[in-house]
């Protein structure tokens, strides 16, 4: 049984290899026929019926591209525009945004111009890390010393690092301008050092971290430099710099104090569940403003990726500027353990971040004839 199987497998592979070689020869013969003006021979060889149909399935991608293009030209020159259009669409499905060569026939260029070859939309995924910058709007404190943030104080704290991930749907409008929207999940944190007594900051103080998890809905506009630019050889640029700006609606899903404790006197640590900001105090109120808005901007680099070079690897730097107070003043004192036992009161502040991201953008197509040519 096993011997039979092996024989069959070997036989099949020979058949496959044989078929592939046969199809390749069929393609080269068709190209030679086109060069000799034997257009009907081209159509017979590549008409996607019978053996030709099997070959289209067996072709490698580059062979498929050659075949579809050849077929398109052949239909054009045999005055069969309907079939030429079908072949062109098939070509564009195989090779997104197929770039015609300068020496391709004018008729092919003309046909190509009648079709939408750019992506109908792109989906971008990005992830990275961020660092927060706290902007204090109003000081609130029960000590004589203003709070210090993100490592600025004399006592050891972190610098306020978080992470984020986003998915955007983007669409190119014209001339390199894109718009996009989607969702972002961002975890941002800031760390504080609150001393009680001037001159004795290292003896009696509170340190801790405020970490928030946000779901954000951004809306942005992006400008890509040299979006349609090509080299002298007609090849699109492999790299594209871009800048962008936009705004987002932000919703705080959760916020907590982590590693928050008082040093000096009898040490006190704020433990769960008393460390929650979104469910604080006896009435489980939120000490942070659940809804907020931001504006943001930044820049990045796209590098073409993939066989057709229509997808991108992206590297991006971005600054987010939160517009409104992160703290809900109405509930600033809702948590007795925080305000009294720990002795900490939040300032009115906004959390701004600088982030770096790496991402991948995939382009999606639906080649159709432009309206004016239908």
């Amino acid at each position, binding site marked *: 049984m096993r011997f039979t199987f092996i024989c069959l497998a070997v036989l099949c592979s020979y058949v496959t290899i044989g078929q592939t070689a046969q199809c390749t020869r069929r393609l080269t013969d068709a190209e030679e026929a086109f060069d000799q003006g034997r257009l009907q021979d081209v159509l017979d060889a590549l008409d996607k019926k019978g053996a030709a149909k099997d070959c289209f399935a067996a072709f490698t991608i580059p062979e498929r591209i050659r075949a579809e293009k050849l077929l398109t030209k052949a239909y054009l020159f045999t005055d069969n525009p309907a079939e030429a259009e079908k072949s062109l669409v098939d070509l564009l499905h195989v090779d997104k945004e197929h770039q015609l060569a300068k020496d391709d026939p004018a008729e092919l260029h003309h046909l190509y111009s009648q079709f939408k070859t750019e992506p109908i939309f792109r989906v971008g995924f990005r992830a990275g890390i961020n660092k927060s910058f706290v902007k204090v709007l109003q000081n609130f404190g029960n000590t*004589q010393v203003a709070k210090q943030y993100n490592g600025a104080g004399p006592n050891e704290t972190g610098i306020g690092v978080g992470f984020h991930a986003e998915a955007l749907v983007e669409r190119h409008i014209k001339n390199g301008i894109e718009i996009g929207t989607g969702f972002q999940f961002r975890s941002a944190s800031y760390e504080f050092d609150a001393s009680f007594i001037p001159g004795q900051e290292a003896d*009696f103080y509170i340190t801790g971290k405020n970490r928030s998890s946000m779901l954000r809905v951004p809306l942005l506009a992006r400008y890509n430099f040299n979006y349609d630019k090509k080299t002298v050889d007609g090849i699109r640029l492999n790299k594209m710099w871009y*800048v962008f700006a936009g705004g987002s609606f932000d919703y705080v899903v959760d916020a907590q104090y982590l590693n928050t404790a008082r040093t000096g*006197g009898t040490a006190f640590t704020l433990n769960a569940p008393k460390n929650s900001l979104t469910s604080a105090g006896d009435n489980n109120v939120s000490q942070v403003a659940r809804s907020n808005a931001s*504006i943001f901007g930044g820049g990045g680099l796209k590098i073409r990726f993939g066989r057709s070079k229509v997808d991108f690897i992206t590297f991006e730097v971005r600054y987010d500027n939160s517009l409104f107070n992160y703290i809900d*003043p109405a509930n600033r004192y809702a948590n007795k353990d925080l305000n009294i*036992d720990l*002795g900490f009161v939040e300032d009115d502040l*906004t959390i701004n971040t600088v982030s770096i991201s790496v991402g991948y953008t995939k382009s999606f197509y639906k080649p159709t004839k432009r309206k004016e040519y239908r």
Partner: protein
Amino acid sequence: MKKLFYIAALSLFISCQIEDDNAPGPEESFIKYLGVIADQEAKDIEPIYADDGVTLDGFVIFGTQKQADSLDSDYYIVRTDALGNIETTATIDPNGAVEGLDLDGNDQDDVLTGNEIAGQIEVLPGGGFIAIGSTSVTDQAKDLTDFRFISLVVLDAELNVLREVTAFNENSTRTTPLNLEGNDITVLSDGSLLIVGAIETLDGDTDYYYRKLDGGTDAISFTKTLGLAGAANDDVLVRAFETDKQTIALFGYSERIGNAGQIGTNVSYVEVNQNGNPTGGSGNFGIPDTVDASNVLRVFNDVLTDVVEKPGGYMAVGTATIDASSFAFFMDIDFDGISRRKGRLLSEFDPTLTTKAFGVSTTITNDFVVVGQYTNFRFGLEQRGEEAMFQRINQVGEKVEGFESNYGLGDGNDNAADVITLADGKIVVATTIDFGGGIRMIGLIKLNDTGELDR
């Protein structure tokens, strides 16, 4: 298009904050901790007004402080702005030279240092302050144990000490050192100063003590004592007021037997003239005794801690103790020394909660805010040990419902020492907050008119 994006991007780095016009002012909080890492205790708070007498300039808080490297506690005075931010502080350890005291008989004034016990502070007309308390000396070499004398300091508006004045019990000898304590100081209308306190007698009890000094020279106008003789009859003066009749109302407490039918320690009142002589007005007031289930008479011992003037008389507060329990009390006393209303201030949280009253102040609606301490606060599942207490009563001593609140760390020995009310109805309390580990800090708490932490 490119330019537009550059401008948009750059604009992010310019302030883009949309600020709330209704946000409160900066550096506000319901509590401000004052001082250094030490064992501090608040005793008295007074408001400081500008020259117009209306604009609040800030507060002065008087208490004590003992730092880790100190041998004893000292007076600690803090001046703050109207938001409770420290402007200046003073730690005063009186120099210990007690003029005229010569217990060891070496013909030289004794130099004694000990623990300062804060009394009261007054804001002087024209600026400056005067603070009174006592110094308690324990010195084995001098055979002294808790030997007390009055220590008074006069300061300028910046809390620089201008002079120190001491007064001791002149009946003291080396073998029989006798105490003299100062509890309050009042600036009278003629500019003189009236000190009130208690003096230890050769009988083994204490009597009322009051001394009038010239405001400028400290020359003694008179020194008076009043009291019932006998070891079981301690009399202590706590507060003094000058009346519209130019007499002086003295308030204290006395432990006496069979006085006007009251036994135990009772609140007492004596009216004297400008020369310190009793005018005849006097009274003793006690929280009504109770009879327990075994038909045994239970007597409250009522110790006065603070008094405030009110229309038609005075509102006095203190702590009534019975067995191991204590309860804050109030007494409404008229100008003729007659008690109109009195009673215990039972807690709305739980009437069995034991409490103490330390201070009282009149509100802008002529109610009274009473502050003090829960000695063991518990409510539902909440157990928080000693907590600062805030209560409110109306003119007839009825509790204002919904005002009562507590404040303090879960584990600490916290209390509210004194209270004042502001023209806008806000209430400011001087508290002692215990962080444990030997750290107690003076805290300035602000409440709004309904007793909630001001925000």
